[in-house]
């Protein structure tokens, strides 16, 4: 076989070119830290990364949802806790009102205090956070209790997704905590109203009755907080699961997508050595002695 000059030069050119392409690819991977820069770099990994990416972004959203549910439930918990304190305070006042040494003016003062606490309870029941009345059910943009202390919200609870097909109830309807006028609940405001009247008028039987009803009101609050606590524990559980999945997905994507620096660097080293050898042999090939040197 004859070997012409053109063959020698073209071959050298091609060989060096091929090594350079590999070198550039590896350098791109090393400098970006990413192995799959485009689908064709590894089409199967690209698909898996895309699937995991979707799951990952959903997990991130669920984590936000968990935070939101956590905020709402915590606010409701604190509010009902505060309302329980108020109810205990009312209980003390009722017991004091039952004392026979009370003068009408003393009872009047007590009644005034009850009225103030009633306003406080009203504020609690109409608690507004993040632009929503948390005890209004779905009717969340208006105060759930009107000026006459009547419940005008509904009995729904807002469900928030904290995982695939996993919902938590992030709100509790006002009725379950403060009563909504139905027989199923204790109407806390009616309770306080009646107590106020009984204390003001000094009617012992009524005071006794309302004191007993206060116990039910307090019981109702405890029940509501138990429900909230249950939801909160579910939220916490979801949080742990999501954090675990988050780490796992991140690791999975990194494994698919990221450069294994050790192997990439050593591969680059191999390519560079090969390139050097190619350049060395090519330069000999191109400089190679020819008859021209002797004639």
């Amino acid at each position, binding site marked *: *076989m*004859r*070997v*012409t*000059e*053109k*063959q020698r030069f*073209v*071959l050298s050119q*091609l060989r060096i070119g091929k090594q350079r392409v590999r070198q550039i690819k590896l350098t791109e991977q090393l400098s970006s830290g990413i192995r799959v820069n*485009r*689908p*064709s*770099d*590894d*089409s*199967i990994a*690209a*698909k*898996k*990364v*895309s*699937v995991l*990416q*979707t799951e990952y*972004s*959903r997990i*991130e*959203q*669920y984590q*936000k*949802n968990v935070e*939101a*549910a956590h905020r709402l439930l915590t606010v409701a918990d604190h509010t009902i806790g505060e309302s329980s304190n108020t109810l205990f305070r009312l209980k003390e006042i009722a017991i004091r009102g039952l004392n026979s040494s009370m003068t009408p003016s003393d009872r009047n003062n007590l009644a005034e205090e009850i009225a103030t606490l009633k306003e406080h309870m009203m504020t609690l029941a109409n608690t507004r956070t*993040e*632009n*929503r009345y948390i005890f*209004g*059910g*779905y*009717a*969340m*943009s208006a105060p759930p209790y009107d000026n006459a202390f009547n419940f005008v919200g*509904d009995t*729904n609870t*807002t*469900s*928030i*997704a904290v995982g*695939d*097909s996993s*919902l938590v109830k*992030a709100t509790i309807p006002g009725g379950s905590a403060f009563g909504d006028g139905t027989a199923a609940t204790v109407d806390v405001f009616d309770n306080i109203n009646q107590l106020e009247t009984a204390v003001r008028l000094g009617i012992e039987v009524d005071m006794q009755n309302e004191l007993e009803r206060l116990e039910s009101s307090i019981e109702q609050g405890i029940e509501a907080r138990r429900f909230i606590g249950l939801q909160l524990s579910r939220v916490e559980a979801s949080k742990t699961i999501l954090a675990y999945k988050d780490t796992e997905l991140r690791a999975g994507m990194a494994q698919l997508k990221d450069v294994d620096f050790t192997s990439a660097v050593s591969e680059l080293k191999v390519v560079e050595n090969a390139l050097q050898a190619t350049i060395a042999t090519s330069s000999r090939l191109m400089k190679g002695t*020819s*008859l*021209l040197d002797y*004639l």
Partner: protein
Amino acid sequence: MLGLKNTLRNAASGMNASQAGLATVGHNLANADTDGYSRQQVHIGNRGPLKVFTGSQQISQAGQGATVQNIQRAHSTFLERQLLRDRMERGFFQEQSQGLKLFERLFDDQASNTIGPAIDEFFNAARDLSQEPHRFGNRQMFMLSAENIARSFNEFSQQAHSVREDADRTLQANVERINELAEIIAATNSRIGTIEAVGLTANDFRDQRDIAVKEIAELADVRVLIHKDGGAQIDLANGFSLVQGNNRAVLSTIPDPANAGLLAIEHTSLSGVTTEITNSIQTGEIGGLLNLRDTVIPTHMGEMDQLAFTFVAEVNAVHQAGVGLDGLGGRDLFDPIGVVAGAGLSMSVNQVIEADPGLIAAAVDPAALPGDNRNLLALADLQTASHAVLTNVTFNHFYSEVIRSVGAGVNRSEQLSEFHQTRFEQSDSLRESIEGVSIDDEMVDLSRFQKHFEASARVMDTVNRMMDEIMQLIR
């Protein structure tokens, strides 16, 4: 009697022959790097004997020296044919892989407008809104994410189409180039005819014609037939004649309304008959471009259209079932799309809802406004649902599969392109080994012809001196 004059003529013929040899060496060396140049060789022959009468009346024959019989180019018809085929295949995959690489960029998940992340974002916006469905700001965010999906699909379709249009522009240039090359071949055909009619070999014109044929082979399927008179007949795919003797057919491009106004290729034969030959061209750069433009990209666009169509239909179905803040339901979130083809391009959000995000159907129960978020929860569940028309997988899974198949397509195309490049190089190296100029060989020839010339000159010198001797005898 053999005269000195005859010897002088012989020496002159040797000098002539070696000069022709030297000229050819020079020609070869000058063209050592010329593309498509075939090394030429001088064939020196015996000029034939002359009858001479010696003193004893016997007839014998004396040589008359050398002559240049012909100058031929080293040529391997077999290899050249192989190279034509290799060129066609290489051209096909080169164009296909280049175009696919452009197309692949539309799936770059680092880009902000890709469809996969847009779908994720949409469902997350629904979940975000489900926390506080009464909030106007959240409703606006949800609407923005819906618009973002529509825009991503629109942009994808537009950009995919512009890759097809880019292919079209190259296609047009290539078709024009074929016409130019056909012109060159027709012209060289006529020159070769004139030269070879008198028994010579038109080496350089044949080289020129070969170069033009090779270039056509890079562009399209081509068959070459060399006639006895030296003329080349060039046929395009499916036997459409391109060049016959001095005549050539004309290729032209014309927008095809049946193919989104992209160009069709027409062939106007020598006798003036026009035929559309777009689908006949299967290889070469034009074949690669057509395959990319009419098969590969439309396949993926069809998949994305199917995704857009299904997405709109499913989201609308859920959205219709819910009610807006006005308590009314039955509204579409996206403008309904009638047919799958072109769904991505025509995707748009319902302007009525866009103008008033309060109409987003977050609620199921018109009596439970504004906090009812159950329809949003149902909407968000669509993300993890499988859809029968999307090969029974989720939206994002389907999209990921398109990414995989595009990536695999680019890979395959690149590998084949490289494979055919290597094959071409191997064939070309073989061809070069036969037809190329080796400087070493030429240097050997150079010395050989120089020595040859020197020897003939020495003969002439000797004859000259002998003649002088005779002249001195006369004086």
